[in-house]
């Protein structure tokens, strides 16, 4: 039997790495990748917790896994839009550095 708390711990570690990536890397694509990593970490936590509920003698549940499906959907949509935006931005400013796209304050 897998130690679920370690699964959750792994999820936390991956999430932290994703966060640091999203905060420090200046490359737009890498930032998006970091966000994907964070989503994956969350998915791992869902599946891990679902494993506990699946063994519940009073009736097993699948809600965690279904939630993961939703997250995957959202992630796919987000990447489609996010990469579209990256393409548009790079076309406009000829740069993939997030510091060159600091016009959000207006």
């Amino acid at each position, binding site marked *: 039997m897998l130690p679920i708390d370690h699964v959750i711990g*792994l999820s936390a570690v991956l999430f932290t*790495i994703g966060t640091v990536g999203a905060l420090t890397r200046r490359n737009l*694509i*890498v930032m998006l*990748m970091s966000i994907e990593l964070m989503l994956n970490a969350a998915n791992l936590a869902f599946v891990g917790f679902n494993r506990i509920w699946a063994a519940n003698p009073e009736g097993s549940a699948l809600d965690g896994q279904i939630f993961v499906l939703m997250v995957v959907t959202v992630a*796919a949509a987000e990447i*489609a839009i996010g990469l579209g935006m990256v393409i548009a931005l790079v076309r406009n400013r000829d740069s993939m550095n997030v510091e060159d796209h600091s016009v959000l304050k207006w």
Partner: protein
Amino acid sequence: MTIEVVLFYALAALAVFGALAMLLFVREVVASAMGLAVTMVSLAGIYLLLEAHLIAALQIIVYAGAILVLFLFVIMLFDPNNDDFDRADPPQIAIKVAGIAAALMLGVAIAGVVSAGLPDAGELPEGFGGFRDIGLQLFTAYVIPVEAAGLLLLAAMVGAVVLAKQRID
């Protein structure tokens, strides 16, 4: 220690390695993407160990397949060796602040997990996690979220087309 547990730790190490590679390959974006691919595949393995067969399959198909390929497409579209890609290393102060915040978050999360005292994974009922079960759930109890997700995908598709076509001034 069963073979399953050994496998889990091995896969976990691989996932962390992939993630760190993504984070630390500053000059090579393609290498970063490959690191992410490693993490995603190893996560698929962990899902299998957790008896989530459908999720494992989707992890490979959607993440390691579709999404990563999409990333690579975009990277290839522009010159990957352009100096502008990652012109400068992140400033030291930003790394420190982000590191502290992230470490804090990690500490809190792990402390939360430890203090919660999660039970071990028990015995699974017969035939758990089959595609059939999930499909039934999806199209009965979760039919409205499924429809909403479909709508979201449609909107994202339209949006991506519009964004990629137009030149924003």
